[in-house]
């Protein structure tokens, strides 16, 4: 009898693991989906307003900014680095694009003309992302500075440019058409969310289905080995940081479109730490990690934030409970990972 139960249990276990292998689902993804499902069930049972179109749409508007920053963070952690300047890059891109629109769009310009100017401004933002990323790549890849220090310095540098240009003030007065990017929906789906999904998909394809992605993983898991296999570590580092800068700049564009303003201080250090936290939750480390996990992790944090905000509405300081819950959740995931991975190692 006992043997029977045991064999059934092993059978189920083998079944699950072969299922996971077949569809290439990692245990981390499964764990995160589990947490995601538990939270959805919990909050929809306790909060009436949680699973409504309105609250889901509002999450769809809030999530992309931090989601994209996490993505920009994640790819640098994947190659064994880090990018503390993601938020500074996003704000610099927004500030420069905003400056361009405020200074150069003539009074009483035609609709089509304004749209052309907005397109140019967005191009400027992307260019800023590209250059910022290239400077990080230069410092980390070619000069050989430690990623933490190099991006810490550029964090100050990029923020410094934003502060200097804006004199610490918020840039406003953008054309109305810009708000399409940040606060309109397409077929009921928020446009920022569509942008976010698009870039998550692009990054996924780049990392998982190209030689570039493969080389980046190699570099992350063992730089010496990758160097001896003929991979140009410096060039890969450079490209990853440029990609990181561009993704960060897109996040800046979304913020600009949603708030219709650009400020050097938006998100501050909190966003940087949050982006690292999301990457940690997704189990990213040098050489290993999946874009999908980052996507789910960012969603989980958003759900916790929205859910507790609803639950504790009216309690003083309620918006700070989410920080507490994020910390606890991260530790819990670490501990669960320790046990599941430890068991695998022992087997």
């Amino acid at each position, binding site marked *: 009898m006992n043997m029977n139960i045991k064999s059934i249990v092993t059978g189920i276990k083998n079944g699950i693991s072969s299922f996971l292998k077949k569809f290439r689902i990692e245990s981390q993804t499964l764990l995160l989906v589990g947490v995601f499902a538990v939270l959805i069930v919990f909050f929809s049972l306790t909060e009436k307003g949680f699973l409504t179109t309105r609250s889901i749409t509002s999450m769809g508007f809030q999530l992309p900014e931090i989601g994209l920053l996490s993505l920009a963070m994640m790819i640098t952690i994947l190659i064994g680095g880090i990018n503390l300047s993601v938020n500074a890059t996003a704000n610099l891109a927004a500030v420069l694009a905003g400056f361009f629109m405020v200074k150069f769009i003539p009074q009483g310009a035609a609709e089509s003309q304004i749209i052309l100017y907005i397109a140019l401004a967005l191009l400027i933002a992307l260019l800023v992302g590209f250059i910022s990323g290239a400077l990080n790549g230069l410092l980390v890849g070619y000069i050989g500075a430690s990623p933490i220090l190099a991006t810490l310095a550029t964090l100050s540098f990029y923020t*410094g440019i934003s*502060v*200097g240009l804006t004199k610490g003030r918020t840039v406003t007065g953008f054309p109305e058409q810009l708000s399409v990017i940040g606060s309109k929906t397409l077929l009921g789906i928020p446009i920022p969310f569509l942008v976010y999904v698009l870039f998550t998909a692009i990054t996924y394809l780049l990392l998982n289905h190209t030689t570039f992605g493969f080389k980046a993983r190699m570099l992350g898991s063992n730089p010496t080995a990758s160097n001896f296999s003929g991979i140009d570590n410096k060039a890969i580092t450079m490209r990853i940081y440029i990609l990181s800068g561009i993704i960060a700049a897109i996040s800046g564009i979304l913020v600009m479109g949603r708030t219709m303003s650009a400020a050097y201080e938006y998100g501050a250090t909190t966003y940087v730490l949050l982006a690292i936290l999301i990457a940690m939750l997704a189990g990213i480390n040098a050489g290993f990690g999946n874009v999908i996990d980052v996507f789910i992790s960012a969603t989980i944090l958003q759900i916790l934030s929205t859910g507790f905000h609803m639950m504790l509405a009216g309690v003083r300081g309620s918006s*700070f409970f989410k920080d507490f819950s994020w910390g606890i959740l991260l530790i819990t995931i*670490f501990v669960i990972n320790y046990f599941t991975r430890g068991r695998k190692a022992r087997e």
Partner: protein
Amino acid sequence: MLKKIVKTNEFVTFLILVALSITIGLINPAFFSISMGFDVLRAAVVYCIMAFGVLLVIISGDVDISFVAIAAMASFTTHMLLIKMGYEGGILLYYVIACGLGLLAGLLNGFIISQFNLPVFNVSLATMTMWYGFTLFFIGATSNFDLPKGTVGYYANFIIKVQDPFVGEAGLHVSTIYVVVIGLFVWWLLKYTTLGRGIFAMGGNRELAVRSGFNIKLITFVTCAIVGVLAAIAGVTQGLLSRYFNPTLFIGQSLLDVLAAVILGGAAITGGRGSVIGTFLGVILVQLINRALILTGIPVEWQRFVVGVILILFISIPALHERRTRRLARTTELAEE
């Protein structure tokens, strides 16, 4: 002996410090005054105390970022508790309770890190978020300006006072003594105890340290506990010096300032290298850079930019230098073959 000193990282930091001071002094002679010196020291006190704790973690080859949150949690919780109890006494009880809380928070870090075999950075990121959230939600979300009677005069409690031609009377604050005592303690710990040697061994080569019989778990526990206690001391000191207690103490730039100070002081972020005196010089350097910008008349809005440029230079030059030495070493090796 002299040659050995000249070659150290600490000496380079010292030279940069001297060069920077002379430059500022030439642009604005008001810089060379005793009151300015006291002012820099006073501002450096809390950063030094925190940096000494972080130094231990960085030498052991990892980075802790939760100390800022522990400082905020310990000092603010202690303050609110004592105010609620109607406490009217002096500063001693503040330090005792806060150190207890800091110790507990440090031990929690140590427990999670050593029990589940995790990097300090990952765990401290989680506990940092958690402690700020805890303090803001459970203790209070706004700064508190009430002070017990016994602590009111503390902010102006000077060891020595001097007459200064520019600003009148200036004094060296008592809390400078804490820096000296804590600095000596950490120095002794690193130089003369097995634990300290273990911290260096861990940072140099973790695997080798384990094989040579160092108790990695114990070392992690103790360093985390020390970081927690020092953070609590820094938090209370900051509260007493500024005469208010703040649940978001040190949130944002302070964390980066402390880390930058330790690194500028010659500690290697990869572990195995670092010193107390270097860290002290690093903290002073960061304070001077911040002050230099005001004294030299660079417009306020461009100051962060200049800090960024200075940091990029400070980081690039040693990295380039190291790269060159490595290449030279390789060439000699090849030539010998």
